């Protein structure tokens, strides 16, 4: 089996100028560990997802794999080539698109921008133009071919970033939060394109990072969950969710609660929990996993003791998010989660 990406005990730390208050990253003072012995293997032809909250180390890993950053220690191979020893060989095989990037020059139009980037990969102009036509069509951007990129809306810009990466004909594509901040329809177009691109050639590989669990669940063949620089698990979304089979996953909505959520974990029978304040709805959403379904009465009792009404209560199919909660002991968007 050929691996598109292999990392062996990859570490990366950053010097901190001022000792920042990042106790949750269990750093020695002045040093921030962004990747902590991360080892992953991605097969050729795989659509692989790297999931984790902000600050987990996802971008750091992508930067190392795309030769923008050196690891502090450990080895990383891309298509069998060492990223530190032969970066030029790696660069011929890869491309990278990050959510919210601003590539190119506002003065060029969409077609010119794509052409320019294709030239850095030595693609003959005719081939590049043909690819651009196809990309414009699939991503529904034909009418914007001659629009100056400085005039594009955020969503269209992100589509441009996308095309910019794919027009260069990589074998392995790194997508760092590609749908960040996109509206639903555009995100859907983008995901559909990723799938089409993968299908066209079985040698193509995508490594995608995201903190949208649903996106990973829907899109990826396999996912690794990463937190504080550590790879926690790595498997298919289906298998990961199966680890929670038999667990009772519940969701409760209560009126917006400013505090008091920390003690929720002390209720007997609650294994893991996570919460999210949805202030626009005036609610707090609690997700929790029980050792046993019968413990639900303890939860309702706790809430009524706290004179908190229950807006809704439902039992859920385990999602990837629940897998994360079960592993890490907090939700992806918890306030006590590490912030970037």
């Amino acid at each position, binding site marked *: 089996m050929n691996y598109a990406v292999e990392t062996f005990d990859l570490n990366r730390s950053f010097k901190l100028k001022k000792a920042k208050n990042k106790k949750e990253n269990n750093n020695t003072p002045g040093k921030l560990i962004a990747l902590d012995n991360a080892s992953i293997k991605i097969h050729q032809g795989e659509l692989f997802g790297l999931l984790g909250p902000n600050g987990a180390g996802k971008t750091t890993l992508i930067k190392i794999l795309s030769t923008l950053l050196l690891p502090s220690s450990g080895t990383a191979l891309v298509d069998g080539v060492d990223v530190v020893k032969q970066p030029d060989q790696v660069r011929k095989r890869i491309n990278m698109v990050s959510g919210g990037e601003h590539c190119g020059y506002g003065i060029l139009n969409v077609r010119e921008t794509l052409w320019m980037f294709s*030239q850095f990969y*030595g693609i003959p102009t005719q081939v590049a133009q043909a690819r651009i036509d196809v990309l414009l069509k699939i991503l529904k951007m034909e009418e914007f071919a001659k629009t100056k990129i400085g005039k594009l809306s955020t969503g269209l810009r992100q589509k441009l970033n996308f095309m910019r990466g794919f027009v260069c004909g990589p074998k392995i594509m790194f997508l760092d939060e590609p749908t960040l901040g996109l509206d639903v329809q555009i995100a859907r177009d983008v995901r559909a394109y990723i799938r089409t691109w993968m299908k066209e050639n079985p040698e193509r590989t995508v490594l995608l990072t995201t903190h949208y669990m649903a996106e990973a669940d829907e899109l990826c063949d396999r996912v690794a969950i990463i937190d504080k620089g550590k790879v926690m698990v790595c498997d298919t979304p289906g298998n990961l969710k199966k680890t929670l089979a038999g667990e009772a996953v519940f969701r409760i909505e209560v009126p917006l609660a400013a505090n008091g959520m920390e003690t929720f974990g002390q209720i007997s029978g609650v294994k893991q929990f996570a919460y999210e304040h949805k202030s626009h709805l005036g609610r707090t959403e609690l997700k929790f996993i029980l050792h046993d379904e019968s413990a639900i009465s303890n939860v309702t009792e706790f809430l009524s003791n706290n004179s908190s009404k229950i807006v809704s209560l439902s039992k859920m199919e385990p999602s990837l998010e629940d897998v994360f909660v079960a592993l890490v002991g907090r939700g992806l968007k918890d306030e006590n989660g590490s912030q970037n």
Partner: protein
Amino acid sequence: MKTDLKTNFKAIIARAYVRIIAANREPSWWFSETLLPILSTAAYVYVYKALKAPPEYTGFVILGGTMSAYWIQVLWSMAAQFYWEKEMGNLDLYMIAPISRMSILLGMALGGIIQTTSRAAFIFLTGSLIFNVSFAVVSFPKLIAVFFLTLISLYGLGMLFSSLFMLYGREAWHGVTLLQEPVHLISGFFFPVRNLGFVVGVVASFIPLTLGLDAMRQLAFKAGAASGFINVNLELSVLAVLCVIFLVTSKYALELMEKLGKKEGRLTLRWQ
């Protein structure tokens, strides 16, 4: 190897294309980059006339104004360019491309030269016509050689600055601002550098414009030879050496900065 060369060549052309296109797409730039320099050049001409300076100074000023267009471009669109590219996120994309980073710099320089030449020519022609400058060219081949060596070494200097500034932010900015005016003075844009004395002249010679302008004055005007700083042939050789030094050191500076940036995590902006 051959395909690598081809790719790098394409990259140079593509990067130059941006500047060539940009030159014609924003009419307002034309205004600020031709009319304003003409006005400031004219101001010098009138000051010299009022001071009853020798008449050949008018020609010197026009020549200085013309070359000053390149200097401004080298400062703002070469030296500070990688810093901009980093802010915009393009630097990442250049760095992951399978090309020499020098190709990007060369493309920027080539595009910059083409872009600025139309402006410089405009300043030169209108200035010469309005003020009725008379030329007496001693040797066209030498004049052309000086012009190109000056441009190559000037843009080479820009490339060197660009590499050095790649990892820095505002500092680069201040550096560029600091360079602009003093260089205008000591490079003798608007008067023979000989007037500043030998020591300042030698120091100023590290900026290719100094010797380039001096040689051009000597080669293009009747009174030029008398006001020359050093012998034209010597100036030509020094310019040739400067070309090599700047291009070679910028290549090494770029490699060094890239290595440092990858090690310290400063090559790209953290938030992307």
